[in-house]
């Protein structure tokens, strides 16, 4: 399965998460793998990538988000309910996984309704700790989800793997001298607001 990794890195938040994701997602089974990072995390580059690949198997994005939109570098809109950049067609048949605040509220079900195979995202803020080593841990659940999708797992298997990874990350955070109790609370709340096909049929199926 091919995959597009789309990651903004233009501010302190996205940069920390981008750096963490690059460590966590160093090895995956995507083929071909399209990397749209930094200034290439832009709607025009997504359109070019779509022409080249014909269709996206997995679209794994990281940037800022709200209930109805997801943005890339410099917060340029990629997907939104108004289809501002005429990019929404690129999600057809795709498993869309967005590491961003709030997109699970409206954008996710909307993209599934447009033809995305499934959506995985968050309905609340995705908090990012200040310590890079803690951020490195935070993103591991999302990385596990991406690997599971690329391995061809069903969504129930993906969720089971994500839960296992959550427990092991939580254990490390609780034992860590760097992570604070509030970091652990943030990690739990991030995970609690994660939605996907296992949550409701409005998030699709795979």
């Amino acid at each position, binding site marked *: 399965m091919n995959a597009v990794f789309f990651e903004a890195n233009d501010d*302190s938040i996205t940069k920390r998460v981008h750096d963490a994701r690059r460590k966590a997602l160093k090895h995956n089974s995507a083929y071909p793998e399209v990397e749209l990072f930094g200034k290439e995390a832009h709607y025009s580059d997504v359109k070019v990538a779509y022409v080249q690949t014909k269709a996206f198997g997995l679209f794994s994005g990281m940037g*800022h988000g709200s209930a109805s939109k997801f943005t890339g570098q*410099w917060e340029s809109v990629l997907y939104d309910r108004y289809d501002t950049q005429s990019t929404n067609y690129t999600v057809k048949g795709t498993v869309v996984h967005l590491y961003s*605040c709030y997109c699970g509220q409206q954008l996710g079900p909307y993209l599934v309704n447009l033809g995305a195979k499934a959506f995985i995202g968050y309905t*609340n*803020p*995705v908090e990012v700790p200040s310590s890079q080593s803690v951020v490195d841990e935070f993103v591991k659940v999302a990385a596990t989800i991406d690997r599971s999708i690329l391995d061809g797992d069903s969504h129930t298997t993906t969720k089971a793997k994500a839960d296992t990874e959550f427990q092991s990350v939580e254990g490390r955070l*609780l034992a860590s001298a760097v992570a604070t109790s509030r970091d652990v609370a943030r990690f739990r*709340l991030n995970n609690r607001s994660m939605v996907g096909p296992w949550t409701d049929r409005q998030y699709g199926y795979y």
Partner: protein
Amino acid sequence: MNLITERNKPIFVARARSIQFCNANDVLTEALANSTALHASAVDDEIMVKASAARKLPRQTLLTVDDATLSEVKELVISRFRIDSTEKFEFLDGRTFSGAEAANQVREESEIGKYFLELEKENLRILQDAFRKGQI
């Protein structure tokens, strides 16, 4: 973000594009960490955050935000930082509360306030659990 340090001028101007929730959190934490009292008022597309008892900061902070995030940032200010109970706080819809009432009101009414409340509850659970296990 840009820093303007002229006396009596806004000292902290965040780019509008960076005032999404998580960045606002970051920006405000950085700017107002040493504040013990806050007053905020919204004027058009700007929010003025005055750290009236700030120890390290000059008198006021100006955050330039886009319209969609204005109320969100304001809610964040109230819910995230201690507010002097005697200060008046005017909500975007015109209601006025004292600082302590405003904080409670936001916690009860706003999505972001509920989020922070839940975060603090979870934090407390973690600390209580660690205490029970003799870890702290």
